[in-house]
């Protein structure tokens, strides 16, 4: 007699055991430490913090270790952990003008007060594998020369602003929304769009930004300024009546200067796109700025030319890699009940259309 399949519980336990064995790999090789990940895989840690929406390098490093280096899985761990944290309050907006910059470049001016600071960048490295790193022993590190201390620098776009050449961003004083606490409602305002983009999947945002460069909603961006460094986080304590410093975080900020627009009422002006991301993450912040600019078409009186990067619903509903990967991978789950109903339907429709079944054809 047929007995229905059972034993799922045991299968799951075994799968988990195997998974943990796979994580450890060859025991002859020393186990990687969370501290090593935090200090030596910083850009991976940054990505997990940015898309996990939780600034904690130690937890992000732990998540990377636990996920075998699958960064989307690590982001997922951080997001699920974030759910359990009670919210005690909110900080004041960070002031990136006061950033202690380790890197600051502008593509729009050859030089500007404060100068171009390359900082730690891959930009001009030759992408040649460095086999000296393959040795298991401690590698020698080239000490950087003249490494000036991180410094506070004026903003490049402020110089354009002085001449009125760049569109002014209006301070509304409105409380920004939070899509981790309120369901997304469309059309969304720029605050929620930016939040969605900074949490969004780096690959998706990059692809969207790239599509604008290739003509799907071209907006002629120049990197007005890209700055990386530490900013102070302050929180207002109602009982004290003033704000106190609760820590410092590293962020990357990108302001693009885009093609001028003008209308009957407004003279031609440059416009901006904005990107701000946890950690050192240039690709993400520049991508974010391009997509932000593309999504601003309505506000800036541009035409909707029907491209993906201008489509707020399309971008916001598909940028989150935790939502995307979950739904994508859920098709691995059993669907045999629905499949069965499709089987019945297709048999019925074929029967009604009097299509002979294969058996009948053969006989």
């Amino acid at each position, binding site marked *: 007699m*047929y007995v229905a399949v059972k034993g799922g519980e045991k299968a799951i336990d075994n799968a988990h055991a195997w998974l943990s064995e796979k994580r450890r790999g060859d025991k002859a090789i020393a186990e990687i430490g969370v501290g090593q990940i935090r200090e030596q895989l910083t850009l991976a840690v940054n990505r997990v913090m940015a898309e996990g929406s939780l600034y904690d390098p130690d937890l992000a490093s732990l998540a990377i270790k636990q996920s075998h280096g699958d960064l989307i899985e690590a982001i997922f761990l951080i997001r699920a952990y974030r759910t359990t944290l009670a919210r005690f309050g909110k900080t004041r907006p960070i002031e990136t003008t006061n950033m202690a910059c380790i890197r600051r470049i502008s593509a729009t001016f050859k030089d500007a007060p404060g100068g171009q600071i390359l900082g730690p960048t891959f930009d001009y490295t030759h992408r040649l594998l460095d086999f000296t790193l393959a040795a298991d022993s401690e590698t020698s590190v080239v000490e950087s020369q003249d490494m000036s201390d991180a410094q506070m620098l004026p903003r490049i776009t402020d110089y354009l602003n002085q001449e009125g050449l760049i569109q002014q961003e209006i301070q509304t004083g409105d409380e920004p929304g939070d899509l981790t606490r309120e369901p997304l409602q469309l059309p969304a305002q720029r605050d929620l769009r930016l939040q969605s983009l900074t949490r969004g999947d780096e690959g998706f945002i990059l692809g969207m930004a790239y599509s604008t460069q290739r003509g799907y909603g071209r907006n002629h961006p120049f990197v007005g300024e890209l700055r990386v460094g530490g900013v102070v986080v302050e929180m207002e304590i109602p009982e004290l009546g003033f704000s106190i410093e609760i820590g410092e975080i590293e962020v990357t900020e990108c302001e693009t200067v885009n093609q001028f627009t003008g209308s009957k009422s407004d003279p031609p002006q440059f416009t901006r796109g904005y990107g701000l991301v946890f950690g050192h993450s240039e690709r993400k912040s520049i991508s974010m700025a391009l997509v932000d600019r593309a999504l601003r078409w309505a506000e800036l009186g541009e035409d909707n030319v029907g491209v993906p990067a201008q489509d707020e619903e399309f971008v916001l509903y598909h940028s989150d890699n935790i939502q995307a990967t979950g739904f994508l991978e859920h098709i691995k789950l059993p669907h045999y*009940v629905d499949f069965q109903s499709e089987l019945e339907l297709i048999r019925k429709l074929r029967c009604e259309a009097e299509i002979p079944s294969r058996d009948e054809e053969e006989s």
Partner: protein
Amino acid sequence: MNEYNFAYLDEQTKRMIRRAILKGLAIPGYQVPFASREMPMPYGWGTGGVQVSAATLTPEDIFKVIDQGADDTTNAISIRKFFQKVTGIKVTDKTIDATVIQTRHRIPETSLTEDQILVYQVPIPEPLRFLEPYETETRKMHALEEYGLMYVKLYEDISRHGAIATSYAYPVKVEGRYVMDPSPIPKFDNPKMEMAAIQIFGAGREQRIYALPPYTQVVSLDFDDYPFEASKADHVCDICGSSDTYLDEVIVDDQGGRIFVCSDTDFCAAQQSAALESSE
């Protein structure tokens, strides 16, 4: 750090979900937006149902989880284990013993009672989504009660195939007002939705909760000349002999031989033991 709150979620999150559930009950079939949280299982794997259950369960509840009608499918096991861990409540396979049942893709064969709550996992809560991808548009359609698009789709099916070519997630109209997605249950289950138990639907990734109070009128969409039909495989269960249950088709040998068995494993087991008792 290892101690999680009762039912995992913090109290403020539970209150937010609870408020959405109550508005859902007050406006049957209307999708209430809620700020879904990331859960420790992936989106698309029942996070909406899990959040509804987390906000609903009490220490006295007896919890049952099914996927495809079965208690021992892997995802049902994973969700059941999660709640055992974070609530410590009793769990069961038996439909009649359960006070809260979380389900994916089926409604149990055993009629539910007034003392039960059925929680559905929903992937795409918007019944109009595959006809109109924009949320801004579908929301307007619901507000204006403008469901012509749905009827056009069903009508096109009929003119093309001679029948409505939707076999699961078959749309329903609730109390003559909102068109609602019943989640991907086979249309065989649609008539059961007018039941004594409370039904709550959770879509985590899509951030929607909706609900049906007991005995709410739920009508599957159809046409006078093409009435709705709750179809199933034209067989009896090869294990328990039931003729009025939803059946899975199982391929049992290399020649493609197949048998039909109840998808509701608890119902099938109960039928078998009843048969055994009466033969003794």
